[in-house]
């Protein structure tokens, strides 16, 4: 450890030295060129001071004489002086972030003071690109941003959810309606088969492990780095895209306290999924073609019980979200401080998610060259989980009732209890006592500072330690069924995660004349340490919570994992005359997950952009702006396994209480990065000052795919990690934004984004294909290709299921009712044709109405739940789903039906996986709609507040889909079984500041 530390420091000083040296060189050579500009003879002297709107002097403003190569730059006090020809010259004043200004000189020497206006137009917007900020005008890569205002519509504790439907090419799916659950995010499709497809998260310059815990209201902006040019600076970790989060900072000269509160009610939604009630199930049983097989308990008496398990187990649940923040400061000090409390009850009873977050962001100008930027974030999340069993709510029969006459829960295992549902589980019984709790503390501390070495060159140091601790407790009461045998059991786990991140960066920024240079070089180190301890004890006195109170230890476990990255990186942007931009970036990464042979990898990108609208020849007045950009670069991905390079023997086994070892992985010392080479082309246009269009096309070629190559079992191993094969993703993304109405009182902004991605495996290990669950991995096919028995419907003659047999030689197709004989075939894939979002905002005076829709078209999903709930009698003692519109049941010979005859015990394995259960999961979902009212200024002036607005909001109001399961969105992500559907939520909220 110590060695490593020294080594790190040494590396850091070395890099610092070299970078300082090279940048100083650049600095002076550039200055030398600049000097030559004004060596021409001139007749008139012009001088003056350049200020901003607040009359502060603006240094570094470039002043050019139009039509000549002459120019200068304002000094530290905003002063300039320049020789110009006596005839009327046009001086052009330009500065990053400000509108250009042109002034015509007179015939004699004069003073021209200029005030520059801040440019707030789209192209002038500063975009956070990870290690730096850039004007959108100069961007060469694909970076999408979501501002704070757009981030806080949906009520959720997770940032990921807030990106849903707001960024083209970013597919966010929420898998469960359980409070606090994280969504899945895919940026521009899936590059990888076996290794992670999760994007990298960066918070205030710090690469975090996994998904960060953040209060959404602390976020100033989110940038999504989609292409190689944008993400290449994250090298080996950027292949799945990067989500860059910047938290809020105080503003100088203000002090604002902001209070926001919202609360609401969530209600479980079941989509098109509908399980049977007592009568429906009774009739279903009547349909069995083999009534002799039905057990004797099937009688009219069953109809006396009609339990709606969902009604019993769900509730209108309360959500509360309160936020208090302060932002402000003066010239030397800026403060942002905020506290948040978030609480959400589950719509499924018995689950309570509770979170406190706090943050302090400071910026302190110690003197003219040193700025300290410490940040602290803390969150404490606790979950009480005594949740009702969803699994049983779906499966239990309406003929079972969980309580006896006295209202006490029944134990189905008690002799004499008639319990018909097959799993014999009445969860109410154990829920009388048993529970889980988790609590998680997260601390993120940044000790960041910036030293301005010269006017143009600064040293930026980012240093972070993130600490996470999670404590889990599982309590099983001695009276409960699960705790009975042990006389109660307590399980306690402690998990700890520490990540360290440090980045030492030199940043050079220079504008002169028509030239703008922005360069950075940095050294970075990042490591991860996770360990846990888990212990169980049995024999407890009811009500205790700690292991000490157990009478006998049962099990102790503990593990530890680590990884480390070390990198150097370099990036340069050059812009000329606001017309052309060029970018180059390079990163060299070393990672602990690879063997010594291949520990380091290089990643780079180049990019360029052309602002056509700034060309003299371009005169189409319809265009507010028109840009072309393109980029190419390489990115990497690391395997999920921590130590895939090593041949190892496992130590976590024993025999007869004695330690044992067993070979478990083969190792691969030549294992290296999965590489993605991406080309991105984009056109951006603004039309009639109303319409913004961005069209992007990309081609991502992933090679050296990190793949867990399966071995035949006779090898004694399941497989090994290797770099094999490739995947190609191509896609197009369109963003349209329009100010449809723009009047004094009425405004309507509509944004539509659309992404389409095609995915194909280009190369695989020795060309072989691999069956992976219900999917196949094969060259030329989509990564998510379904490989199933092909369903060909019900035989009208006898109501049996039918599948295809394809003769491997002749390709001749025959039908069979024998499932085991049916041929596995490629029957579609799970990739949507396109997906995206629609965002609309209508404002009339103080009233606003916003809506956020998400949609996806054409994904084929395997509805695994139907194996159980649409089983044609295979699971007669699980509750079954009602037939959807358009479905029909075979009853008599000649029936053309979608569903086979009901047979008690199952009809020839009709419920086993086949293309029968593949469904189209296209959907359109209204994620959020919100009606707000902001108090008019006239009224506000009489109140001690700066602004006040109230709103009504609803999440997940409706979903249009034909999918027969609970949630098409979760299904696309592969989650179709007993999932927790997304609730519908109604909220009322209030914001005010003073």
């Amino acid at each position, binding site marked *: 450890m110590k060695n490593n530390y020294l080594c790190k420091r040494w590396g850091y000083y070395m890099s610092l030295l070299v970078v300082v040296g090279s940048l100083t060189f650049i600095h002076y050579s550039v200055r030398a060129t600049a000097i030559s500009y004004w060596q021409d003879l001139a007749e008139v002297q012009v001088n003056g001071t350049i200020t901003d709107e607040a009359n502060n002097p603006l240094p570094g403003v470039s002043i050019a004489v139009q039509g000549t190569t002459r120019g200068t730059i304002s000094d530290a006090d905003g002063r300039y002086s320049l020789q110009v020809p006596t005839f009327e010259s046009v001086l052009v004043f330009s500065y990053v972030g400000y509108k250009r200004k042109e002034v015509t000189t007179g015939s004699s020497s004069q003073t021209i003071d200029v005030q520059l206006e801040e440019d707030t137009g789209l192209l002038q917007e500063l975009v956070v690109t990870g290690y730096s900020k850039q004007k959108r005008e100069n961007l060469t890569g694909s970076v999408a941003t979501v501002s704070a205002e757009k981030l806080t519509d949906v009520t959720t504790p997770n940032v990921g959810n807030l990106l849903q439907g707001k960024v083209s090419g970013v597919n966010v799916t929420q898998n469960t309606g359980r409070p606090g659950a994280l969504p899945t995010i895919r940026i521009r499709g899936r590059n990888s088969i076996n290794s992670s497809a999760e994007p990298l998260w960066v918070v205030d310059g710090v690469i975090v492990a996994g998904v960060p815990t953040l209060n959404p209201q602390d976020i100033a902006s989110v940038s999504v780095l989609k292409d190689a040019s944008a993400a290449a600076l994250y090298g080996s970790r950027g292949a799945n895209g990067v989500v860059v989060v910047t938290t809020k900072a105080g503003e100088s000269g203000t002090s604002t306290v902001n209070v926001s509160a919202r609360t609401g009610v969530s209600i479980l939604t079941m989509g098109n999924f509908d399980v049977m009630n007592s009568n429906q199930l009774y009739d279903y049983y009547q349909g069995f073609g083999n009534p002799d097989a039905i057990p004797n308990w099937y009688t009219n008496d069953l109809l006396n019980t009609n339990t709606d398990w969902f009604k019993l187990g769900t509730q209108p649940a309360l959500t509360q979200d309160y936020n208090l923040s302060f932002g402000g400061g003066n010239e030397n000090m800026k403060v942002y401080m905020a506290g948040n409390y978030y609480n959400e009850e589950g719509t499924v009873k018995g689950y309570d998610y509770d979170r406190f977050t706090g943050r302090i962001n400071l910026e302190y100008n110690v003197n003219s060259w040193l700025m300290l930027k410490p940040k602290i974030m803390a969150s404490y999340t606790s979950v009480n989980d005594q949740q009702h069993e969803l699994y049983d709510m779906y499966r239990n029969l309406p003929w079972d009732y969980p309580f006896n006459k006295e209202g006490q829960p029944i134990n189905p295992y008690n002799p004499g209890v008639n319990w018909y549902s097959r799993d014999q589980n009445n969860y109410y019984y154990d829920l009388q006592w048993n529970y889980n709790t988790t609590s998680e503390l997260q601390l993120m501390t940044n000790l960041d500072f910036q030293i301005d070495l010269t006017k143009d060159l600064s040293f930026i140091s980012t240093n972070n330690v993130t600490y996470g601790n999670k404590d889990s407790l599982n309590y099983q009461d001695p009276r409960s069924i699960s705790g009975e045998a042990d006389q109660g059991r307590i399980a306690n786990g402690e998990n700890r995660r520490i990540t360290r991140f440090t980045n030492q960066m030199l940043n050079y920024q220079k504008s002169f004349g028509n030239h703008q240079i922005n360069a950075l070089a940095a050294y970075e180190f990042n490591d991860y340490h996770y360990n846990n301890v888990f212990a169980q004890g049995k024999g407890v006195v009811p009500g205790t919570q700690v292991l000490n109170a157990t009478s006998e230890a049962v099990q102790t476990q503990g593990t530890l994992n680590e990884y480390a990255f070390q990198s150097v990186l*370099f990036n340069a942007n050059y812009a000329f005359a606001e017309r052309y931009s060029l970018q180059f970036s390079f990163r060299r990464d070393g990672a602990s997950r690879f063997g010594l042979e291949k520990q380091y990898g290089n990643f780079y990108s180049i990019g360029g952009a052309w602002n056509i609208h700034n060309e003299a020849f371009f005169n189409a007045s319809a265009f507010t702006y028109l840009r072309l950009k393109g980029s190419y670069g390489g990115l990497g991905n690391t395997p999920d396994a921590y130590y895939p390079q090593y041949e190892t023997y496992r130590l976590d086994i024993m025999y007869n209480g004695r330690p044992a070892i067993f070979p478990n992985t083969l190792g691969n010392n030549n294992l290296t990065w999965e590489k993605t080479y991406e080309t991105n082309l984009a056109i951006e246009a603004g039309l009639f000052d109303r319409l913004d269009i961005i069209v992007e096309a990309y081609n991502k070629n992933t090679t050296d795919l990190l793949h867990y190559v399966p071995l035949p079992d006779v090898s004694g191993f399941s497989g090994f990690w290797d770099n094999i094969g490739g995947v190609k993703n191509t896609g197009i993304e369109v963003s349209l934004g329009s100010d449809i109405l723009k009047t004094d009182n009425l405004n309507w902004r509509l944004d539509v984004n659309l992404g389409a991605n095609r995915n194909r495996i280009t190369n695989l290990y020795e060309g072989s294909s691999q069956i992976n669950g219900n999917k196949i991995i094969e060259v030329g096919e989509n990564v998510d290709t379904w490989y199933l028995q092909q369903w060909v419907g019900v035989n009208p003659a006898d109501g049996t299921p039918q599948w295809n047999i394809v003769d491997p030689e002749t390709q001749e197709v025959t039908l069979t009712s024998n499932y085991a004989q049916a041929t596995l075939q490629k029957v579609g894939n799970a990739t949507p044709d396109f997906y995206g979002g629609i965002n609309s905002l209508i404002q009339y005076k103080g009233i606003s109405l916003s809506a956020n829709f998400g949609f996806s078209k054409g994904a084929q999903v395997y509805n695994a739940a139907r194996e159980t709930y649409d089983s044609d009698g295979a699971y007669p003692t699980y509750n079954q789903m009602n037939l959807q519109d358009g479905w029909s049941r075979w009853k008599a010979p000649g029936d053309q039906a979608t569903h086979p005859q009901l047979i008690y015990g199952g009809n020839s394995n009709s419920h086993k996986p086949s293309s029968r259960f593949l469904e189209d999961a296209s959907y359109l979902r209204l994620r959020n709609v919100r009606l707000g009212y902001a108090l008019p200024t006239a009224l506000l002036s009489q109140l001690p507040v700066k602004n006040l607005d109230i709103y009504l909001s609803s999440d997940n109001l409706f979903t249009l889909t034909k999918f027969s399961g609970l949630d098409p969105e979760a299904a696309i992500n592969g989650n179709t079984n007993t999932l927790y559907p997304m609730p519908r939520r109604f909220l009322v909220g209030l914001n005010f500041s003073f």
Partner: protein
Amino acid sequence: MAIFLLGIVACEVERYPYDSIVADKLDESGAGIEAATLGNYAMLKSWTDNWYRLVEYPGDNVALSGTTSDALFFNYNYQHIPNNYRVATYWQNSYQVIVGTNKIFDTFEEGVSEENDQLLGENYYLRAMTYFYLTNIFGRPYTQNPASLAVPLKLDADAKVFPERATVEAVYQQIEADLLKAETLMSSFKENVYASPEAAQALLSRVYLYMEDNQQALAYADKVLASTNVSLLPTETLASYPTIVPESNDETIFAIKFVKDADNLEWSSIGSMFANIQGVGWGEMYASQPYLDLVRQYPSDQRNGFIDPVYLLNDAGEKTLWALYVDNKYQYEWLPVEGAPGQYTYTDANGNIQKLGITMAADDTTYTIKLADNTRQEVELEYRMADRNGYPKYYITKCSGRKDRRSFGHRLFPGWQRCTSTVPKQMQS
């Protein structure tokens, strides 16, 4: 730039695993043949799970109360499906153990020390045993056609070598050779939870029996019986066989041991399918009627002790009688029976009280009732029982250790997996 990069390359980002040990560092750690051999035993623990389900469920001794969503259903009902994970896992576990033993043969030489040879012998035994069950499950019986294909004979530890299926004969020859070698290499009987010369001899006896070399089968059985390390349990203790820890059970020649609490199987134990004991276990598969008929033929049959019917009590806390039979739809039917022995009555389909028919024979008494169609149906006189899906709960506790685990162990996780299926006691694994 080049210098810039050089400055960095010297730094270390190496990290090593903690749950496992890197092969290169194995020697430094001191973990040798003993730990590696124990590793093979350890892997056999998970192997037992599917091995048992594959050999027992297709038999007639058990009856499943309805259907189950687990793939074991297809082992039970003969509807073989190509992607049965239980079969696949059994196959995979078997070859893991085989390669685990091969690795030891590649690494450690014979004749270095007595302890080493003993351990090598144990590994030869484990490999032979694994191949023996593999070939019996995936190949034809030896005597049917020794030239037919059985399973691949993997005899090295090279992960890139994938042998083709070998003949039944070749596999048997290998098993025989391994066992003979094991018998010579091993010199002591440590405990019956490790392989021993007796274990090798017992398995040899079985192998020869399957090869119909009865002379040799007899000879090796005699060797085992002559050993002082093992002996048959007295008859009266036999029913409590499952409740005795392996090391205290003289009849067990070789067992794969599960340590109480540390090897926590609970719901995934093989006994969990047979009973729900103190809230743990699926309890979905019961003793079948043919099996019950067989063991009940002689009340003194100690195997009756392995069956634990779940009786229901009336309000007075007493057991009540049933006339139980299987009807022509293969469903269990039952009627309450009242009265004293010899004067049993029941209520027929028309609501009339009838006397239970009795036929006394020398060794058995049979009872009959009259059905609605006036035919007579033989019935079993049984106490009223709990049922699942119309199947009376004849819990099998043979695989579950004690019925009351509070006295000692622990429900379905009895201290070790204990089930022999069709394998005789001597083969207890």
